[in-house]
């Protein structure tokens, strides 16, 4: 059985370490995708300039559009760069989601589950803005 604790010493699963890795992986993933996208663009066209606008899209619609292009096998430097930005924007969102699950499942802390649920709800609403 996995034991959860926020206190140092004698714990196998530490939420801080887990959340720390989410943030680190999110940042590294985003930077890697941006580097791949820009390198590909440079190799293909000899320029690093990317001229396109997201035109007032919300993050979820933006993600669906990217996924549709990817499933149709349309992959381009532009999509990789967009994915890099998406991964970065989703990193703090995932951090809040994992904290909420931790407070709910591991700590059975109703108060902080509600607090993180509120943060998550406001973020979800804001990411649906268009």
């Amino acid at each position, binding site marked *: 059985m996995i034991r959860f604790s*926020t*206190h*140092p010493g004698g714990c196998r699963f*530490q*939420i*801080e*370490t887990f*959340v*720390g*890795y989410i*943030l*680190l992986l*999110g*940042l590294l993933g*985003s*930077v890697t995708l*941006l*580097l791949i*996208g*820009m390198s590909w663009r440079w190799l293909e066209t000899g*320029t*690093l*300039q*990317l*001229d*396109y*606008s*997201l*035109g*007032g*899209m*919300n*993050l979820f619609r*933006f993600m669906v559009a990217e996924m549709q292009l990817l499933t149709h096998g349309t992959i381009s430097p*532009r999509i990789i*760069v*967009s994915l*890099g*930005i998406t991964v*970065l*924007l989703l*990193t*703090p*969102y995932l*951090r*809040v989601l994992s*904290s909420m699950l931790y407070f709910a499942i591991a700590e059975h802390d109703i*108060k*902080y589950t509600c*607090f*993180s649920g*509120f*943060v998550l709800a*406001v*973020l979800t609403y*804001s*990411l649906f*803005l*268009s």
Partner: protein
Amino acid sequence: MQVSFELAFVVSIAAGLVGAMSGMGGGIVLIPGLTLLGVDIKHAIAVSIVSVIATSSGAASAYLRDRITNLKVGMFLEMFTIVGALVGASIAVVSARTLLFILFGAVLLASWVALLLQSQEYITLADQQDCVSRWLELEGSYYDQAVRATISYRAIRGYLGGPAMFAAGLIAGLLGIGAGAVKVLIQEVLMRLPTKVSTTTSNLIIGVTALAGSSVYLAAGLIDPGLAAPVILGVSTGAFAGTRLLVRLTNTAVRRFFLVVLLFLGIEMIVRGIRGAL
């Protein structure tokens, strides 16, 4: 105006470097830098707030693994900063550009004054906790390597810290910066949290606050991926190098250099704002 990848990348590295070395964050140098290159201030603010997520995630991941960050304090305060950031970013989208220049200049000059008057006084931790902060469980402990002891602390005035954080979020969303200095000040002075806890928890809050602000700029169509890519890469590189360079440079040298940069950029932004208004 379209700025070349290379120029945006170089300015972003410099902003990340100076931001990490001064502890003020990258946005405060990045936005004036980008506007000097000819980028529209609203696009500069939008792209800066996205880059703030990158620098905050990088720093917060290291601090979290050191187990100094207080997740509960962070989550409680985030409830206020994200609402503030949404309001701030919505105001920025409809504001006149001249007003944003003047406001940004004013924040730069306020940071200059804060840095000039900065004292090294230690925060005295509170013995008694009010009932609201106790109910909110705003307390914790961490192992301080410098003094080789476990420091236990209890925050106070959580009922004031929350609303004050709304203002910090508003500044962050409005101007596209982390506003870490304001967040640290609220936690230290108002809530009496130890400096290390305030700094690390502030870093965690900055990322979520920046995401709330970014979503408004994304919806307004102000995030340009062609500019965001070099800025995210540049600021991350600069911040990474800055934290390592810091050990080799003296604090006084960094502080003097940053005082000059802040004063110059603050005056320059206000002058441009006034000129634009005339």
